[in-house]
C-alpha cells in the first residue's frame, strides 16, 4: 500500500515540476490574413460555427489573428512554398494526431475520456464524425445530417434494430444514439453517458425500476440488458426472446415454469402463453415492495 501511495506522490511531484516549465514560444505564424488570401471560403465557413466566435476565449478565433493556425499550426513555410505538406492538413494526418489537436481544447466534460476510449482505440478521430468547416447537422458539427446517420456508418446492425417491432422512440425522433451513449468515451461501460453501470443509464429514465426493492429480481439487479435489447427486437418491450421462452431460460423448476407452452396450450388459451406471457401474472417482475411479493405477483 505504501508503495502505491509513494508512487502517486511521485507522480504528483513530476507533474508539478512539468507544469512549471514555460510554454514553447510560437514561431512561424503568418496570421489569418495570409491564410484567407487563398482560403477565403474556409474562413467564412468557420465564422458561422462556434469555432469562429472570438468572444469565447476558448475558441481558436480568440487567438488574435491566429484562428486558422491555432489548429492548422504555423503556416509560414506553407504560405511561402505552397507545399501542402508544410501545414497541418487533417485529412492526411494520422487519426490520433488529429484528435491530439482537438482534445488540446476539448479536454473537459463529455470529451474528457476520449483518449483510450473505444473509438480512439479503433483509430477513429474527431473528423471521422465531425466537420469543423462544413458540418451538415443542425448541431454538434456532424458530417452527416443527424446523429443516427453518423453512427450507422459503422453500427448498421444496431441502427437496423431501431426498425423492429419493439423499439425506443428513436425513429420517431424523440431519442437518438447520443441520448444513451457518449461516443467520446465515458467512465461507464459501453460508452454509456449516464451513471456507472448499464442499469444506472436505464433507470435515469425508468426511475420507477430503480429500487432497491424489498424483493429484488436477481437478473434485473444484474443488468437490464439480460432480458432487454435496448436497440430493438422482434418482441414486445424489446425483450431478447418471447415470453414464456425467455423466462424458461432460468425458471424450469416444478409445475408451470417447466411446462411446454406449445400449440395445444395456445389452443386452450393458457394464460401463460397468450397476451404478455409470464407477466400476465408476474407483473412486478422488476421488483416488488409488497411483503407478499416474493414471486412478483403483488
Amino acid at each position, binding site marked *: 500500500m505504501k508503495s502505491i501511495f509513494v508512487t502517486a506522490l511521485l507522480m504528483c511531484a513530476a507533474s508539478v515540476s512539468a507544469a512549471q516549465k514555460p510554454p514553447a514560444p510560437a514561431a512561424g505564424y503568418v496570421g489569418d490574413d495570409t491564410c484567407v488570401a487563398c482560403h477565403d471560403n474556409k474562413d467564412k465557413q468557420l465564422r458561422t460555427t462556434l469555432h469562429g466566435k472570438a468572444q469565447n476565449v476558448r475558441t481558436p478565433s480568440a487567438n488574435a489573428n491566429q484562428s486558422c493556425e491555432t489548429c492548422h499550426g504555423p503556416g509560414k513555410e506553407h504560405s511561402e512554398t505552397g507545399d501542402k505538406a508544410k501545414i497541418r492538413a487533417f485529412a492526411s494526418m494520422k487519426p490520433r494526431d488529429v484528435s491530439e489537436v482537438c482534445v488540446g481544447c476539448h479536454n473537459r466534460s463529455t470529451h474528457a475520456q476520449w483518449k483510450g476510449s473505444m473509438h480512439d482505440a479503433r483509430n477513429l478521430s474527431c473528423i471521422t464524425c465531425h466537420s469543423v468547416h462544413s458540418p451538415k447537422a443542425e448541431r454538434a458539427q456532424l458530417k452527416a445530417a443527424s446523429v443516427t446517420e453518423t453512427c450507422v456508418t459503422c453500427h448498421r446492425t444496431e441502427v437496423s*434494430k431501431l426498425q423492429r417491432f419493439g423499439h425506443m422512440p428513436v425513429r420517431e425522433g424523440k431519442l437518438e444514439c447520443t441520448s444513451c451513449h457518449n461516443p467520446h468515451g465515458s467512465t461507464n461501460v459501453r460508452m454509456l453517458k449516464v451513471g456507472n453501470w448499464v442499469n444506472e443509464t436505464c433507470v435515469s429514465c425508468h426511475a420507477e425500476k*430503480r429500487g432497491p426493492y424489498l424483493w429484488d429480481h436477481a437478473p434485473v439487479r444484474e443488468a437490464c440488458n439480460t432480458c432487454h435489447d435496448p436497440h430493438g427486437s422482434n418482441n414486445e418491450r424489446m425483450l431478447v426472446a418471447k415470453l414464456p421462452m425467455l423466462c424458461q431460460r432460468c425458471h424450469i*423448476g*416444478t409445475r408451470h415454469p417447466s411446462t411446454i407452452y*406449445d*400449440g395445444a396450450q395456445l389452443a386452450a388459451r393458457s*394464460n401463460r402463453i397468450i397476451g404478455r406471457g409470464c407477466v400476465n401474472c408476474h*407483473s412486478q417482475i422488476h421488483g416488488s*415492495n409488497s*411483503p407478499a411479493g416474493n414471486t412478483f405477483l403483488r
Partner: protein
Amino acid sequence: MKIRRLFLIAAAVVLNASASFAQATAPSPAPSTSPEPGETTANVAEFTVRGTSFTPGSDQARFMRYRDLRDGGTLDLLRYTKSTDAHIYNVQADHVGYRDQRFSLSANDFGKVKASFEYNQIPLFFSEDTKTLFSPEAGSANVLRIDDAVQAGLQNKTLPYASVDALAQPFDLRLKRNIADFKATYSATRAIDLNVWLRSTGKAGNQPWAGTFGFSDAVELPVPVQTRTTDLGLGIEWAGGRGSARVGYDGSFFRNDLGTLVWDNPLRITDSPTLGPLQGRMSLWPDSNMNAGSVSGLLNLPARSRVTAYISLGNWTQDNLLIPFTVNSALPSIPLDRTTSDAQARVTSMNYSFNSRPTNEVSFTARYRLYDFDNRTPVFHVARTVAYDTSVAAFPEGGTSPYSINRKTFDAEVSLTPLRYSSFRAGYTREQIDQTFRSFDTTTEDTVRLSADASGINWLMLRAVYEHAKRVGSGFDQEALDDIGEQVSLRQFDISDRTSNRVSLVMQVTPVSALAINGLVSAGNEDRGATVFGLRSNDSRGYSLGFDYVPRPSISLGASYEWERYTSLQASRQANPGPQFNDPTRDWTTSGADKASTFNASMDLIKLLRKTDIRLSYDLSHAESLYVYGLAPVTTLATPVQLPAVVNELQRGTVDVRYRFTTHFGAGFVYWFDKYAVNDFAQGEQTLTTIAQPSFLMIGYLTRPYTANTFSGRFTYYW
C-alpha cells in the same frame, strides 16, 4: 483495504490535477474582432396540414405509438437563431399543439454562460380498442372496481363468464411523459466551468398491467400511472493544459402518487378464506432517492501519457410504508417484520485509467474499474406469506434476498499504427463479479480481442474485430437452486459458464468519388457446455450490403440490405415434485430462431428541377421468430404441437417535395405510406377474440396490423 488503497491513488491524481490547476490558469488574451460582424440567419417556420387514411381494421394506436399523428394543422417546425459575435439565441418548436410537441430555448453568451431549456412530450399510445370491466373508484385512481352486479353474477354463476366481453367499456390505453429539462454552464474563468442541470419528468396515463388471484383467475388491468422524477446535477470542473478535475453531485428523486393498486376480483363479491378474495392489492413502484457525489481527475504526463481517476459514491434509498400481506379480510393477519421497506444500497464506482502514446506508432491503455452495489437492506423475515390474496402458505426461504454485486474489471490494450491509415489492436479484459444470493458466488470472465482498422484512405474503410471470451463461475451453491425448487443442474444464463466468440468486418469501398459501397459480415456464438438445463447456446450471423451514389451534387441515391439471424437452444424438464423431478424422459428443448431483413433505399434530387427538392425513400423491416420444441430421444411427454412463427413487417415509403417560390416562401407536400403486418400467436386478434379468455380476463391489448396513407401539405417561411 483494497478500496482504501484505490481511494488513495485516486486522491493523489485528483490532488495533482488540482495543484496543476493553480499554475496553469493564465490571463485570457483579448478576443479578436470578427471579420464578419452582424447576424447570420437560418430561420424557418413550417406550417403543415396532415390527413391520414387507414385501411379498415388498421391499428391506429400502433401507427402513432410514440407520436401524435392526428389529422389537422400545426406549426410543425420552428427554428429561429439569432447569432452575433457575442452570443447566439435559439428557439425551436416541433409539432405544436399535439401530444408529441417539443419546445426548446437556448442561449450562449460565448465564453460566459450557456443555458438551455427544453420541454418535450413523448406519448406512448398502446391501444385505442382496449376495453375493460374495471373503472377507477371516484376520487381514487388506484382503486379499480367492477360493477358489483357483475361480480355477484359471476360468483353465483348467474352471469355467463363469456358474456362480460359485451359489458366491458372501451377506452384508450395511453401514457405520456412530459419532460422539462434545464441545463446551464457558467464559465467562471478560462479554465473553470460550473454546471447545473435540472430535469423533471412527469409520467401520466395507464399501461398494461396484471393482477392475479390464482392460476385460473388472472386479470389484466390498465394500471394508472402518476409519477414524477426530479433529477438534479451540479458540477464544478477545471481543465487546463496539465489536466482536469471535476467535482459533481447527482441526485434523482422518484415520486409515485399512487403507491398501491387495489382491484376487484371479477369472480368474487365476498372475501373467502378458501375461494379467494373480493379484491387484490399490490404495491406499485415505490418512492426512491438516489444521491451520488463524484470526483474525477485527469493528469497529463510526459510522453503523451495521462492518468485518470474517477470515484463516485452513491446512496440509493427507498423507505416506503409496507402494505399488509393481504387485503383479504377472511385470511389471518400476518405480522410484518417491520413497517417500512428500509431499503438502501451504497453504490461505489471507481475508474482508473492510464493511457500513453510513447511513439507515433504505439498507444497503450490500461483501466481498472470497480462497481460495487452493496445492498444494505436488512433481510425482511417471512415465515408465512400470502399467495394471490387467496391463501396463506409457509415460506421456507425465510426472508428476502437483498442482492449485492461487486464487479471488478481490469482491461489493457495496445494499439499499433504502423502505417498512417492502419491500426491494429490487441486487448485483454478480466472481469470478476462477486454476488450474493446467487448460485455462483463469483463469475470470472476473461476476454481477448483483436482488431484491425483501416481508415482515412480515400477509397477504403475497413474495420475488423475478433473477440473470444470465457466465463467461469465458482463457489457453486446448490441450495440456492434447491430452495426455489429448481433443478440443480440448471444454470441461469446471466451467470452460467460460457465460451463466446464474436467476429465482425465492416467495409466501405469508394472506387470513384461518386460511389461508395459498404458491407458488413458478422458472426457470434455462445457455448455453455456445462449447462444441462437453461440456455445452452446463443449464436448470431449477419451481413449487409449497400451503396451510396452521388453522380452530381443534385442527385444522390443509396440502398442497403441487411440480414441477421439469431439462434438459441435452451433445455428444460417438465416435472412436478416426486418421481418426475429426476425423470430424463421428461426433458425437452426449445430451439429459437430470430431472423430479420432490413432494406432501405433513398433518392434525393436537390434542385435538379429548378427551386425544387425531391426526396424519395423506402424502408422495409421484416422479422420472424420461430420457437421449435424438441423432446428427449426416449420421452414420456406428448408430442408438442409446434407454434407458428411470429412475423413483424414494417414498410415505409415517402415522397417529399419542396418548392421554393421566393427567398422567403416555400411550399411542398409529403406522401407517406406506412404498412405494418403482424402475425403474433400470443397477442394477435386471431387468438384473442374476446377479453374473456379462459382463466384470464384481459383488456384486449393486441398487436394488430395497419396500413396508413398520409398526405401533408406544407407552407414554409424562411427569414
